[in-house]
């Protein structure tokens, strides 16, 4: 059994708030949505479960008996058994969920050209992404989005392709709600302009 403190990356002396904060940060990073059409999606899900388990254990220990209910499952962005009116697609989705990519690809390729709708292109894109064939995957998913522009599932898949690891310090956006010196200066200038109109203009600059 791994040490839940180490899993969450907090010291044993951490307060409840610190644990919650660490948990939220990790859950955001390893959320299965970030890895939905990734070949290692199941590994990401395992990691997420590990994080949830560690958090639950700690909370249980701390609150003594009142366990917070968290079952480790969350929407993965890819619905394995969705019934879209076509049994073949449900079967293919099941195969993809069970990591049987080769079989899913064969089934997809066997389908007639007339049957190749937006979902076909989306699933094909998914299969190709798992193989690492990113250019073909992107073009298939883009086709799916073009054929069915209002489908959130296809749109989300395309968005995920554009994002790297949320853990990476180089992909995180800088000032999330913060206030830097530039914003402070422009704020002051704006305030001064307003004051000027109202008869103020106290700032000498």
């Amino acid at each position, binding site marked *: 059994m791994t040490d839940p403190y180490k899993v969450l990356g907090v010291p044993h002396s951490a307060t409840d708030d610190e644990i919650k904060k660490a948990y939220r940060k990790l859950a955001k990073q390893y959320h299965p949505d970030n890895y939905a059409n990734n070949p290692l999606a199941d590994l990401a899900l395992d990691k997420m479960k590990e*994080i949830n388990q560690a958090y639950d254990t700690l909370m249980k220990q701390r609150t003594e008996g009142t366990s917070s209910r968290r079952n480790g499952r969350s929407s993965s962005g890819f619905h394995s058994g969705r019934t879209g009116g076509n049994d073949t697609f449900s079967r293919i989705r099941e195969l993809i969920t069970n990591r049987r990519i080769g079989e899913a690809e064969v089934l997809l390729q066997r389908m007639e050209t007339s049957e190749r709708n937006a979902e076909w292109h989306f699933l094909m894109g998914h299969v190709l992404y798992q193989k690492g064939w990113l250019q073909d995957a992107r073009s298939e998913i883009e086709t799916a989005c073009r054929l069915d522009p209002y489908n959130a599932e296809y749109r989300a898949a395309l968005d995920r392709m554009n994002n*790297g690891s949320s853990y990476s310090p180089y992909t995180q956006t800088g000032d999330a709600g913060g206030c830097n010196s530039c914003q402070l200066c422009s704020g002051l200038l704006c305030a001064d302009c307003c004051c000027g109109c109202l008869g103020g203009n106290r700032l000498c600059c």
Partner: protein
Amino acid sequence: MFGYIRPVQSELLVREYELYRAVYCGLCRYGGKHISHFTRFFLNYDFVSLALLRIAVTNETVTISKERCPYRFRKRSTMLAEDSYRLTCAAFAILLYYKTVDDINDSRGFKRIFKKMVLPFFSHIKNRVKGYDDLDKFIQARLLQLGTIEKEIGGVTSLDKVAHCFAGITEYIACYGMSEEKAQIAAQCGYHIGRYIYILDALDDIIEDNEKSTYNPLINKYGSVAEALAHTEEIKTTITDSMNAFSSVYGLNLIGDNPDRIKDYDNIIFNICDLGGKAALNRVLFSLAGYKGDIRR
């Protein structure tokens, strides 16, 4: 391999930069000692990054010491990570040999004769690698497959299908001898490194290949250099996708019960995929920008 996979040094912390240099130095030294002194002159950043990836994923126990470099005349930090270096150097020696064989087939005239003359020397280097017959066979098979695809110009037009052969090699090297979870992570990272290198190299060589009329997957896909360069955005996107996928997969390596993990590795690797990848791509695009005027002939 061509030295595209490396970090943007100015964005590293000084200690991370030192660590990266120590890996470079260690790998160079190890190759010189166990394979051949001449491998030290051919070593490039791609292999250093592959070695670093393996060290980071396996969390191998390493020793860092100050050693005197005979070529720089001063002492430098050197990292010793026996297992990762042994495999990386073996793969390097094997690839070096097959690259020379490939070059002989591609070149003409005096260059061809010269390369044929130095081939036994590379063959000797490859023969010094012991215990990696499976790696040798795998690389040979994949390169043969790649060669077959490359021979039929106008045949396979899918860029991914061609890149798959090369990416398979880096995938195999990256995860060689690892266990389940680590192997999965390293394999995916290795695959995307290989795919990135292959496509970027094709973009880099596009003008030269066009002049010599040799195979280039991008010319093959789009029909001509002008047409390929008109699709620069598409090529750029797919190369960036590879680095995004690498970054995303490597993120899975971070969590776990490892108090002794050296966290600096992660920062270097994220630097490589998020900044280094883009920097190398921009370098190539910048060098191509000058040709835009005369490719329409």
